[in-house]
């Protein structure tokens, strides 16, 4: 490399270091530019720092975070389904219960109520299960009972994992799996699920990238923050 090029590179790095220092002084530690993390990434993309911001003087004056409008319990219990066509209703009832918005204390009775709310037999029935594989009716019932908003998409594994990681819960269904489950969150590099048919197609409590590939395409419904 010619001296002029080396100098130019050093000047650019010096500039990034200066900007990182400014970000430190101004309390912008993590996330998108202009943060310390972003400038360190620009200096050396191989470092991948785990950003742990310090408590800042501005945090002392900040009002306490309001409690979430809709509380989600990812550990809510799931029990096995009795009828083989009710996986979508079981998943929806679990998600409602995880949001403290189910019908009563008896899960089986809740599932029956859920089935009727989805729309028996036009939207869900013993012949086909849930008629609209995108989950539109599940979204409708969930939104009506909780007041929360949801979104839907046919997602890649990485997209679904990122959404699950956000921690608001959801549901998903694989086309080749022909089965709905709830989304609790993530567990390592897998999606942690609530499964009313544990073991079906060799899936218990986790969906791996390999499962996603062999059982897809997956439609996901997730709760917006």
């Amino acid at each position: 490399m010619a001296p002029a090029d080396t100098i130019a590179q050093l000047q650019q790095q010096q500039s990034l270091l200066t900007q990182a220092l400014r970000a430190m002084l101004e309390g912008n530690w993590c996330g998108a530019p202009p943060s310390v993390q972003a400038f360190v990434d620009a200096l050396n993309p191989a470092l991948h720092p785990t950003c742990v911001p310090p408590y800042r003087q501005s945090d002392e004056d900040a009002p306490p975070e309001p409690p979430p409008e809709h509380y989600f319990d990812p550990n809510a219990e799931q029990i096995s389904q009795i009828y083989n066509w009710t996986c979508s209703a079981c998943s929806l009832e679990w998600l409602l219960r995880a949001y403290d918005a189910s019908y009563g204390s008896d899960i089986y009775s809740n599932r029956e109520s859920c089935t009727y709310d989805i729309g028996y037999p036009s939207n869900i029935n013993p012949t086909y299960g849930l008629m609209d594989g995108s989950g539109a009716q599940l979204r409708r019932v969930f939104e009506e009972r909780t007041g929360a908003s949801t979104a839907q998409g046919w997602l890649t594994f990485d997209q679904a994992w990122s959404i699950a990681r956000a921690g608001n819960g959801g549901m998903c269904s694989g086309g080749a799996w022909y089965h709905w489950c709830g989304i609790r969150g993530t567990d390592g590099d897998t999606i942690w699920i609530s499964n009313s048919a544990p073991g079906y197609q060799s899936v218990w409590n986790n969906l791996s990238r390999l499962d996603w590939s062999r059982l897809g395409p997956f439609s996901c419904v997730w709760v917006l923050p």
Partner: protein
Amino acid sequence: MTEEEQAQITQLQVQQSYLTQAMKAALESRWVGEDSVEAWLLAIDPSLQGELQPNPPAYP
């Protein structure tokens, strides 16, 4: 190496010494005032005068 290149390297060396001083100040929790991160940043880039909005870490 040309004279201009030599001058650029000298400037980089000075800036690097200021950056090092600023890092030391950060480590010693001097974010504003004399011999602070803010002071050394202004020495590196005087155009930042009046632009900085310190929000330093709070110490117990």
